[in-house]
C-alpha cells in the first residue's frame, strides 16, 4: 500500500509540473519548450499504451509504432480530403487502430516469447511499407497536413498552448483509464496471465480473450497518440512507423520502469529531453545515447523509478 501511495505522489508531482510548464516557459520566453513537451506527452501516451500490455501483461509488442502511424494517417488522409472535423478524425483514428490491433493481436497472440516479438515486428513492418509505397498519400516523402483538427468553436488547436493542454488532458485521461483497467478484475487476470498463464487457465479464465482485449485497448491508445502527433507536426511520414521508432517507445517504457503507469511518462520525458540535450551538444549524439541505453539495460532492472527508490532506500539505511 505504501508503494502505491508513493506512486501517487510521483504521478501528482509529474502531472503538476507538466500542467505548469507552459505559463512558466512563456514567462521566461522559452516557448520552444511547449512544442518539445507536447511531443514528449504524445510519446508518453504511446509509452503508457505499450506498458499496459508489456509491463502489466508481459506481451512484448515490437510493432507499436504502427498504431502511431495508423492514427496519424487517419487524421492526415481525412484532412487530405478536406474533412477536418476533429471528432470524426479522432474517432476514425482510434477505431482504425483498434480494428487493426484486433487483427494483429488475434494472429500474434497464438505465439509467445521471441516469436511474438518477431510477428508483431513483422506486422509493424508491413504497415510501414504500406505507408511508404502508397504514393497517393506522399509515399516515403511524406505529406503536409493543411490544418489542425477542428473541434467546432470549442477548441482552437492552432495555438501551441491549446494543443499542449489538449494533449495534457488526453494524457491524464489515459493514465486514469490505465489505472482503472489495471486495478479492475480484468487487470488482475492480465497480470495473473503474465506471472503464470497456466494457472490462470486452470482457474478457468480464457486468457487469450483477456489478452486480446488488452492488446486492442493498447493499440487504440497508441492510435490516439498518432492522431495527436499528426496535429503537432502537421506532417505525415512513414518514418514514424519505422521499427526503430517502436524500439524507442519500448526504450521509454524500460527507462522509466515498466509495470507502473507513471514510469513510461517519466521514461518519455527522460528519453526525449536527453535526446534534445545531446543533439544540441553534438551532432553525433547517438554515439552517446546508444551506450547509455546499453548501460541502463545492463545495470538497472527497474528503470528510473526503481533506481530512485533503491537509492532512497540505500541512503535511508546509511
Amino acid at each position, binding site marked *: 500500500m505504501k508503494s502505491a501511495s508513493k506512486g501517487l505522489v510521483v504521478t501528482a508531482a509529474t502531472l503538476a509540473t507538466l500542467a505548469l510548464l507552459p505559463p512558466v516557459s512563456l514567462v521566461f520566453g522559452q516557448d520552444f519548450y511547449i512544442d518539445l513537451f507536447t511531443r514528449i506527452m504524445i510519446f508518453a501516451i504511446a509509452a503508457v499504451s505499450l506498458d499496459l500490455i508489456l509491463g502489466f501483461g508481459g506481451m512484448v509488442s515490437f510493432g507499436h509504432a504502427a498504431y502511431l502511424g495508423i492514427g496519424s494517417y487517419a487524421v492526415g488522409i481525412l484532412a487530405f480530403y478536406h474533412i477536418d472535423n476533429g471528432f470524426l478524425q479522432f474517432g476514425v483514428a482510434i477505431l482504425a487502430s483498434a480494428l487493426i490491433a484486433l487483427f494483429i493481436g488475434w494472429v500474434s497472440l497464438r505465439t509467445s516469447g521471441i516469436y511474438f516479438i518477431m510477428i508483431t515486428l513483422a506486422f509493424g513492418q508491413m504497415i510501414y511499407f504500406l505507408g511508404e509505397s502508397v504514393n497517393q498519400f506522399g509515399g516515403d516523402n511524406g505529406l503536409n497536413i493543411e490544418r489542425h483538427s477542428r473541434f467546432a468553436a470549442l477548441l482552437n488547436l492552432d495555438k501551441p498552448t491549446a494543443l499542449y493542454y489538449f494533449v495534457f488532458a488526453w494524457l491524464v485521461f489515459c493514465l486514469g483509464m490505465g489505472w482503472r483497467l489495471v486495478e479492475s478484475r480484468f487487470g488482475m487476470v492480465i497480470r495473473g496471465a503474465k506471472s503464470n498463464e497456466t494457472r490462470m487457465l486452470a482457474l478457468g479464465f480464457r486468457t487469450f480473450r483477456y489478452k486480446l482485449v488488452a492488446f486492442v485497448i493498447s493499440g487504440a491508445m497508441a492510435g490516439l497518440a498518432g492522431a495527436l502527433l499528426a496535429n503537432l507536426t502537421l506532417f505525415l511520414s512513414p518514418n514514424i512507423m519505422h521499427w526503430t521508432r517502436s524500439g524507442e517507445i519500448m526504450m521509454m517504457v524500460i527507462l522509466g520502469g515498466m509495470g507502473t503507469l507513471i514510469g513510461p511518462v517519466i521514461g518519455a520525458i527522460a528519453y526525449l529531453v536527453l535526446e534534445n540535450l545531446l543533439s544540441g551538444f553534438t551532432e553525433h549524439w547517438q554515439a552517446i*545515447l546508444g551506450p547509455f541505453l546499453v548501460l541502463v539495460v545492463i545495470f538497472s532492472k527497474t528503470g528510473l523509478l526503481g533506481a530512485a527508490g533503491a537509492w532512497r532506500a540505500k541512503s535511508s539505511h546509511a
Partner: protein
Amino acid sequence: MIIVAEQVLNGVQFGITLFLMAAGLTLIFGVMNLVNLAHGSLYMIGAFIAAATFNATHSFVFAIAAALVGTAAVGVAVEVIVFRALYQRDHLDQVLATFGLILFFNEIVRMVWGATALYAQVPDFLSGQIQVLPGVPYPTYRLVIIAVGLVVALFLYLLVMRTRIGMLIRAGASDRTMVAALGVNITLLYTLIFGLGAALAALAGALAGPVFTVESGMGDDLLILAFVVIVIGGIGSIRGAFIAAVLVGVVDTVGRAFLRPLFALVMSGFAADNAGPATASMLIYILMATVLFFRPEGLFPRAKR
C-alpha cells in the same frame, strides 16, 4: 521468359545475402539464446571496411579479407564487453541493449566515413556478364555471390555436422547446462560462434556493397528480413535458414518485379500502381505471418527435449 529467369536469379542472389546474415543470427540465437539486433551493424561494418579497403588498395581479395577479420574482431569485442552481461537476461533486455548498440554503430560509421554513401565498385575481373541460359546474360558478380553463398552453406553444413566444434555447437543449442557440466569451455565456444557469425555478416556486407548502397543504417532493414528468415526457417536451424532465405529472397524480388503488371491485368492502371508495390513490399511479412499461423515454431522447429 528472359526477364523471369533474371528476376529469379536476382531473388536467389538476394536470398543468399540474407542467408549469410541469417546463418550467424540463427546460430547465436540457437546456441546462446540471444536476440542480437546489432547483427545488422556487423553487416554494415563489413560493407564499409570492404569498400574502404578496396578503394584504397584496389584488391578485391584483400578487401574481403580485411572485412572478415576486422568485423570478426569487432564482433568478439562486443561479445566480451556487452553480450556476456546479457546471456542470462530475458529477450526484452537483449532487444533493448542491442538496439542501443545499433544507434552507437550507425553513428560511429557516420563519424568515420561521413554521412553520405560510400562508393563501392565491382572489381574489373568480375564486372562482365555470363550467358546463364542461351540468350540470358547475367552479371558475373551476382553469380559469384550465389556461388560464394553456396560454398559457405556447404562449409557451414560440414562444420556443424562433421566436426568436433560443430558437435559442441549442436550440443550447446540443445542443452547448454549439460555441455558446460561436461567440462566444455562454454565461454570460449560462445565467443567463437560470435566471431563466426560476425564474419558471415561481414562477408554478406562486403559482397552486397557494390549491389546495394553502402551507407549508415544499411543493415537495419536487412536485419529485420534476416529475422523473418530465421523465424520462418525455425530458430536455430541452419538448414531452415537456408531454405527460408532463398524463399524470402525470391518471393520478395519476384513480387516486386511482377505484382504490379499482374495487378494491372485485373484493375485500373492507377489502382495497380498503388496496390502493386504496396502488396509486394508486404509479401514476405504476409508469408511469415502465414507460416507462424500454421507452424508457430517455423518450418524446421528444434526437436523437443
